[in-house]
């Protein structure tokens, strides 16, 4: 388990650190240490030093990771719910309804969605709630396609036909027989959606359109680090490296899970 799921272990360790560190450190993520602006690593009580206005880097990394992962999980859940509802309905009803619903998905796939999300952020203010609703609404398309395919094959299976013949109402068939059977595949794609969402959230935050100060996220930290990289490269390398590690680990685990179910 430990060696086979090494990437998952890394992610869990990162999550545990992000959750526990704020309690263990003597500095909060927005607290300014006036005596130590741009302190180098391992100076005094700042393990990774401080940023250009004297905030503890490690505390900011922990807080940023928390927000990034929280947004990612919430947005992935939005995409899961919308995707399953859409895909299952299309796959179950079939025929013209299915045709029309899937055409819509195809059409949406072709849109410059990032730009619509950017517009949304600009228009409705940059609340964190909107960040994950917006992202979730972009990422549901793949889920809908996968779920539809699964439901269409399940529909032909004898146990579903038997349930139908026994007069079970469609809602019950859906809840009792179909959903449990697509749970595995849905989980695999959920796992692959999370890194996608992390990427989108960080992208928005990097442009200044996502999570807003005083809250912080890995995207904001990368942006701050990039602006100050000629003075202290650590500011870019730490959050950037952490972000890449999270993305790579989640992608590897997600792909493994997907390959197991397909």
């Amino acid at each position, binding site marked *: 388990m430990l060696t086979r799921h090494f990437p998952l272990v890394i992610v869990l360790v990162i999550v545990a650190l992000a959750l526990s560190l704020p309690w263990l450190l003597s500095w909060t993520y927005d607290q300014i240490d006036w005596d130590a602006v741009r302190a180098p690593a391992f100076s005094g009580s700042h393990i990774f030093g401080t940023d250009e206005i004297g905030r503890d880097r490690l505390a900011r990394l922990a807080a940023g990771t928390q927000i990034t992962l929280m947004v990612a999980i919430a947005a992935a859940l939005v995409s899961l719910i919308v995707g399953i509802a859409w895909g299952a309905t299309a796959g179950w009803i079939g025929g013209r309804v299915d045709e029309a619903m899937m055409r819509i998905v195809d059409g949406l*796939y072709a849109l410059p969605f990032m730009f619509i999300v*950017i517009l949304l952020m600009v228009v409705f203010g940059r609340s964190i709630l909107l960040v994950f609703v917006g992202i979730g609404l972009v990422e549901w398309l793949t889920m809908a396609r996968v779920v539809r395919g699964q439901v269409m094959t399940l529909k032909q299976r004898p146990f579903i036909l038997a349930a139908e013949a026994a007069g079970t109402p469609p809602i019950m068939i859906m809840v009792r027989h179909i959903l449990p059977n697509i749970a595995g595949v849905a989980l695999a794609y959920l796992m692959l959606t999370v890194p996608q969402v992390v990427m989108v959230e960080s992208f928005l935050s*990097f442009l200044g359109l996502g999570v807003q100060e005083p809250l912080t996220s890995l*995207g904001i930290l990368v942006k701050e680090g990039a602006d100050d*990289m000629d003075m202290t490269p650590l500011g870019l390398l730490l959050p950037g490296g952490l972000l890449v590690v999270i993305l790579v680990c989640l992608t590897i685990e997600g792909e493994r899970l997907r390959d197991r179910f397909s």
Partner: protein
Amino acid sequence: MFGLITRRLLTAIPTLLVIILASFFLMRLAPGGPFDGERPLDQTTQAALQQAYGLDRPLWEQAWLYVSRLVQGDFGPSLVYRDFTVSELIAQGLPISLMLGGLAIVLALAIGVTAGLFAAVRAGKAADKVIMMLATVATALPTFVTGPALALLFGLWLGLLPVSGSGDGAAWLIMPVVALALPVSGAIAKLTRAGLASVLKQDHIRTARARGLSETKILFKHGLRPALVPVASYLGPAAAGLLTGAVVVETVFGLPGLGRYFVQGALNRDYPLVLGVVTLYAALIILFNLFADLIYGWLDPRMREE
């Protein structure tokens, strides 16, 4: 083929119209306007500006006016860059964005197909596993991390490449294009390997082997073409990804491309500029999807529509 092209172009018109109208009304719902500066303008100036740009008319009328001018190729004036029309700004920015995106996709195809081919030939061996691991890592590299990291390494520390701006020669293109191409090349490598691995198991390859053809000929003449079908279908999403990636890369490297105008325009409520760029992006993506479908049909004749 002409049937496919005309049908696609005809369905593109309503799609574009929906995008334009949706973006138009979305922008107008936003609080704040293009003339909210640091110092508030007095009432009469405000009203005069509103009138000059037609912002005092009913929304539907403005939308209708916008679309009817757009059909004639007029994107309207920029509200923030007062001396320029949106068409002029697009004419300045588009070549840079297209060059970045075009070079990135060529580079990504070159790296991705080569790596995928190599991995498929050595399927199951160490080289295959290493290449596929690298491809996974590459797909997970966001441009906003690789961009600044490359600038730090090659620009600031090694001093080999310019950190920002579009100077003489082509050196300024290297880092932005590499940052853009990396994640796409990873995805292409995976698709090529998967495609080739399944094609090499098929009957026509066995027949070719039985006839004594050389491995290289089998690989390039009979294997690669059908194996690239999944790659072709990925080109549409890849183009969309490159356009969004270009927004970041242009910001990071200070390049005056379309993406930068888009972000600036959105932040400044420059309605015509944002609408113009969104419309153009949508048209480009639709065009690229069509292009990808044509390549698809060329690679795999069974996919051609009757």
